[in-house]
C-alpha cells in the first residue's frame, strides 16, 4: 500500500552529497527531550541539512504547533553541530509539509514500545468536514508492557501534546500512547 522507499525518502530526506550527509548524521543524533529514546531523525522532525562552504542550513518541523520541546531540539542541533566544528549554523522551523506520525521510523516505534510508550497505530487521516459521529472507530492500542490489546483510552490528552493516556485491562497498568497525527 505504501511504497517503503518513497515513504522513507519523505520521512527522512537524507542529503545526497557527502558533506551535507556528514552534517545530517551529526544533527540526527539529537533526541527529543521528553522522549529521549527517539532521535529527531526517528521522529521525522529533521527535514533537511545542507552544507555550502562553511555554512550549515538545517530545517526542523514541529510535531505539534505549541510543542515546547521544539526550542530544546533546535538548541541541541545547534550545540552538536557547533561542537563538531561547524561555525556558521542556521536553523529554520518549517510548518509545511505538516508533520505526521506516519514519518516515525520503525526503529523509533520499537524503541518507543521498549521505553513503555505505545507507538502510533495506523495512518493519519484528517476527517473531512461535515457531520462527526460521536464515537470514532479506532484501532486497538497494544499495551507496551504485556502486549494485550484489551486496553482503553482514559484521556485524549496526556503528559505531552503528542500523547494520550491509556489503561491496560489485563495488567491494569496505565500507559502513554503516542497518538496518530
Amino acid at each position: 500500500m505504501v511504497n517503503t522507499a518513497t515513504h522513507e525518502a519523505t520521512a527522512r530526506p537524507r542529503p545526497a552529497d557527502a558533506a551535507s550527509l556528514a552534517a545530517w548524521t551529526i544533527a540526527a543524533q539529537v533526541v527529543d527531550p521528553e522522549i529521549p529514546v527517539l532521535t529527531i531523525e526517528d521522529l521525522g522532525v529533521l527535514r533537511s541539512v545542507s552544507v555550502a562552504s562553511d555554512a550549515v542550513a538545517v530545517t526542523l518541523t514541529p510535531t505539534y504547533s505549541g510543542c515546547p520541546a521544539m526550542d530544546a531540539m533546535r538548541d541541541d542541533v545547534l550545540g552538536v553541530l557547533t561542537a563538531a566544528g561547524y561555525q556558521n549554523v542556521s536553523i529554520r522551523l518549517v510548518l509545511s509539509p505538516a508533520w505526521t506520525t506516519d514519518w516515525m521510523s520503525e526503529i523509533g516505534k520499537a524503541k518507543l514500545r521498549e521505553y513503555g510508550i505505545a507507538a502510533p497505530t495506523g495512518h493519519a487521516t484528517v476527517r473531512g468536514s461535515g457531520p462527526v459521529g460521536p464515537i470514532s472507530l479506532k484501532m486497538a492500542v497494544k499495551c507496551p508492557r504485556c502486549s494485550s490489546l484489551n486496553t482503553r483510552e482514559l484521556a485524549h490528552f496526556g503528559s505531552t501534546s503528542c500523547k494520550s493516556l491509556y489503561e491496560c485491562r489485563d495488567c491494569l497498568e496505565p500507559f502513554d500512547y503516542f497518538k496518530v497525527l
Partner: protein
Amino acid sequence: MTDAVNKDSIEVDAHGHVAVDVTTLDAELIEGPSVATPDVAEYALWLGDDSLVLAQQLGAWISRAPELEEDVALGNVGLDLIGHARSLLHYAGTATDRTEDDLAYWRTEPDFRSLHIVEQPNGDFAHTIARQFIVSHYLFELHSRLRASADATLAAIAAKAVKEVDYHRDHSTQWVLRLAQGTDESRRRMITALSDLWPYVEEIFRDDPLIDRLEGIAVRPSSLRPAFDAAIAPVLAEAELEIPRGFVASGGGRTGKHSEHLAFLLAEMQVLTRAHPGASW
C-alpha cells in the same frame, strides 16, 4: 527569512521570542510569503487573537478542572492554540516589523481583533465545554478550508492546525454528550451553558469588509455556517439539546469593540511583561 541562530541569539530566544519561519522544503512546493501585506496581516491578527485569548482562558483551568485528566486536556488544547497564535501573530507582525510578543503583550483591548465568544468567562465546566464545542467546530471548518488559501503561509499554518483542532472538537463533543446525558445537575448546567454562549455564535460567521479584499486568501466566515450547523446538529440531537433561541449579541470584536471581560483577561496576561520588560526565567 532565515532564522540565523548563533551563540548570541540563543539568549534572545530564551526570552521567549522564537521566530517560526514558514517555508517549504522542496523547490517544487510553494514558498510562503515572508512578509504579510497589510490586509493579510489584519486577517492573521483576527485568527491569531482568537487562538491567543482562548488559550489564555484554558490555561486558567489547570489545577481547577473537575478531574486531573481535564487539567491535562484543557492545558494541552490551550498549548496547541498558543502554537497557532504564535505562528499567526508572527506572520501578522511581519507587516509592521513587530514580534509575536510585541503583539501579544503590548496592545490594549481596542487593538485586539478576537471574537466575543472567546472572551466569555470560563464559568463552570459546562460553560467552558460549550465554548469549546462551538469554537472547535468553527476552527475545524475554518482551517479545513484555509489549507487551500492562495497565501502559502496561511495555508501551511492551517494544514498544521486542522489536525490538532480535530482532537479538540472530538474532546468537546464527547463532553457535551456526557454532560447532557449525565445527571440532572450536569444536564441542567449544559443547557444553561449552551444558552449563555449561543448569542455569540452569530458574530463568528459575519463577513466584515476585509474579507471582500482577501478573495481566495481568507475564508469567508458566512460560507462556514452550513458546515458548522451540519457538524453540530447530530451531536445536539444525540444529546437531546435544542439550539437555543433568543437574542444575538452585538459582536464587534473584529473592529476592536470588546466586552468588559477582555480587559481583565489581558491585564492578567500582560502584567508581568509590562512590569518587567524583557524579563526571563
